[in-house]
């Protein structure tokens, strides 16, 4: 078994710590709230979300932003639990994209 891509304590090559902070976008606030709401309703546990992140593609893990990783994990867990399917998320998203003016 290889070391998990999340298991990074002590790995060399880290640079200076960027202390700048960004104001959360609406989609990040929503991701945070959906995650917490699902937990509060007992739909999923934080441990499942962590595991989903660990199972993610390693390149994707490094490239995604923090809340993107949360959204990918939420989706993976909801699909795994058969609460949603990828197809219905895709369909719903297409409907939104027509509304949002996606070319």
């Amino acid at each position, binding site marked *: 078994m290889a070391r998990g891509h999340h298991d990074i304590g002590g790995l060399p090559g*880290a640079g200076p710590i960027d202390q700048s*902070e960004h104001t959360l976008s609406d989609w990040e606030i929503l991701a945070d709230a959906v995650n*917490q709401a699902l937990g509060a*309703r007992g739909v999923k546990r934080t441990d499942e979300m962590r595991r989903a992140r660990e199972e993610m593609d390693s390149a994707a893990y490094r490239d995604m932003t923090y809340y993107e990783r949360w*959204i990918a994990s939420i989706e993976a867990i909801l699909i795994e639990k058969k609460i949603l399917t990828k197809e219905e998320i895709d369909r719903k998203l297409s409907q939104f994209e027509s509304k949002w003016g996606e070319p």
Partner: protein
Amino acid sequence: MSDAGNAEHGHDHPKHELSHYAKRIYAIRDLLIEKGVITEKDIQCQIEYQEARSPANGANLVARAWGDAAFKGRLIADPKSACAEMGIDATAINEFVVLENTESVRHMVVCTLCSCYPRPILGRPPDWYKSFNYRQRAVVDPRSVMREFGLNLPDDVEVRVHDSTADIRYLILPLRPKGTENWSEADLAKLVTRDSMIGVMDPLDAIPE
């Protein structure tokens, strides 16, 4: 640097410019509500809960502990009860531990595996706490991290780094700055930065620059 926990809605990109996953959360949200898995009210409640949590909670706890030795004892012995005394709802934390800094010991907290943080007290963690660079460096070279935040410690001060790998959530009780005798709690609280409660720096000095 604002320590406020309120979720200010900054300048947002038009939705069709959002990234793949950023867009998907809107679809996921709508589907979950349609299917009755969660409600719109659930989401609103969580947003409000999060907005009510900020480093000010921690600063108030610390300021009181500095001024009131009995409260400090209670804060260390039973942090959740001490929070309740001050009207801070820490019930969502499974297990809460307060680590007291002294002249000879400084503590620092990291979650190398993800981003565990005492959110019910302090609100969301700063971006840097969640960054790969912090998670990689904090356990192996905490002093270099502290130097970046302006804290230079001699070798005879013990640095204790906690990797928060389980359900325990850690809050640092920073060392009270010199020259603050007889200060009010409100003034003391202003010296307690969020980053001093994570442990990468000491609180602000009492003497203005």
